[in-house]
């Protein structure tokens, strides 16, 4: 079998797009149109829909896409989604970290003197779970972007965010205090498609494993 075998694949735009399309090329999927067109969202042939990485699990859970590529960070944040996690695609590596401004650890100080620390994040559930698990009281402040700004302006003492190279953190004078979880891209599948389209899906997973150099 070649191509996607009739399955609809949700592809994340952003950092993981290039690696995802490169992998698809190696499987013989024609991605020229997706590469050429960054406004179009739906590509009937070969069966690709593009979206924000954090929406991939939503589309796949609902069956609006049969399979999808998204980060482990998204799956950890949306852990209640009923989707199969089939394959670690190994690209898009990054780490979920706790970071604060350099120098004295403002989080530790706030916890010691005020009893609660304020943490800004785009990942409220991962952050809340991490501080619960480590027995620290934290107020989670959800922001939608530029999390690094929060400790610089006094919105929060620290942040929980995803970092690949650490450049953005460094440029804003932040240092990593703790690592919460390592993330890479994952192939996920809708639970009904996993049964009803088993042959096409297993074939695709086998070809992906081969293309990634794993038996």
């Amino acid at each position: 079998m070649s191509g996607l075998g009739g399955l609809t694949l949700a592809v994340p735009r952003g950092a993981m797009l290039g690696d995802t399309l490169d992998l698809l090329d190696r499987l013989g999927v024609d991605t020229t149109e997706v590469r050429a067109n960054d406004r179009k969202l739906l590509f009937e042939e070969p069966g690709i829909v593009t979206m924000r990485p954090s929406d991939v699990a939503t589309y796949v859970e609902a069956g609006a896409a049969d399979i999808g590529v998204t980060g482990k960070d998204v799956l950890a944040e949306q852990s209640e989604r009923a989707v199969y996690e089939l394959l670690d695609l190994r690209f898009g590596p990054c780490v979920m970290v706790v970071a604060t401004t350099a120098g004295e650890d403002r989080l530790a100080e706030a916890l010691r003197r005020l009893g609660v620390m304020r943490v800004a994040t785009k990942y409220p559930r991962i952050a809340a779970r991490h501080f619960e698990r480590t027995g620290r009281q934290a107020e989670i402040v959800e922001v939608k972007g530029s999390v690094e700004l929060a400790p610089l302006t006094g919105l929060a003492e620290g942040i929980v965010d995803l970092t690949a190279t650490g450049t953005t953190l460094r440029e804003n004078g932040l240092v990593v205090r703790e690592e919460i979880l390592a993330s890479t891209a994952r192939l996920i599948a809708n639970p009904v498609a996993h049964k009803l389209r088993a042959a096409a899906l297993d074939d695709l997973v086998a070809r992906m494993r081969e293309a990634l150099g794993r038996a």
Partner: protein
Amino acid sequence: MSTIHPTPSGTRDVLPDEMREVHAIVESVREVFDARGYGEVRTPALEYEQVLTRGDPAAADPAYKLFDEQGNVLVLRSDMTIPIARVVSTRYATVSPPLRFCYVAHAYRSVRPQRGQDREMLQAGIELVGVPEQAGTAEALTVLCEALDAIGLAGYRVGLGDASLYPALLDTYAVPVPARGRIMHELQTRDFVGLEREVDGLRLAAEATEALLSVPQRRGGVEALDAAGPAADGLRAVFAALPSPVAERVIFDLGLARSLGYYTGAVFEVYDAALGAPLGGGGRYDELLGRFGRDLPAAGWALNVERLHIALVGERRGERL
């Protein structure tokens, strides 16, 4: 401007147009139950917490709990299987099996509300008590398919697995207890990447690693059972006992893990290409009635009526995954 009077999260009103269509579905299912000799029962929506937890510790995590005037903890039932197990052991304590019950009733679970997944859900289902092994499982599956046919669903399939199969495999390879819990958790949360990590971490022989990783991913026709060897003999016997229209609907799924803890043997789920989530499911629970003092084998299933309705509308509009 009118004031807003919301309903609790995960509950909703059903108005006459929808209600008429829901009624048509329920009536079709009831005719099948009746023709097959299943008698309808109604039990209280509220049960004592200790009754539900006797059936399954997971039933202790229901959506709604309250106290009565004596301070007893009451919960809204999370399924109908445990209440019917209670009925069998108390109201039918001396009646000889087999017993056949059916219900169309609401159950309450603390799920994330979304389409086809309300916290108050209408279920239609059966419990077949006292018919063991393949004979009982085959009857339950046959009634299931007759009900789905009667509703008018054309494209449904039944995923069939065995709750005892993977634990038996873990026994075969002498997987130690703490790792077993983690492995079963990965399977139940559908995380094959996590399963691979846990199984690789055991450092077993190549053949054992291969079996533990590949068996739960086997899905398909009866040939999918070959991978599991004698551990799948139970499923082979069920398959042999199925009438051909039912057998044609079956997809074997050796990784099928249902969230309720009381299943002991065959487990199944219903899929339709018009909906991204299962329409319902069930299985064998041969130890549940014993916990209520009547040690009888049993099997049953429940269909989510709202999901049946969504799938039916979807099929007629030509939607498919």
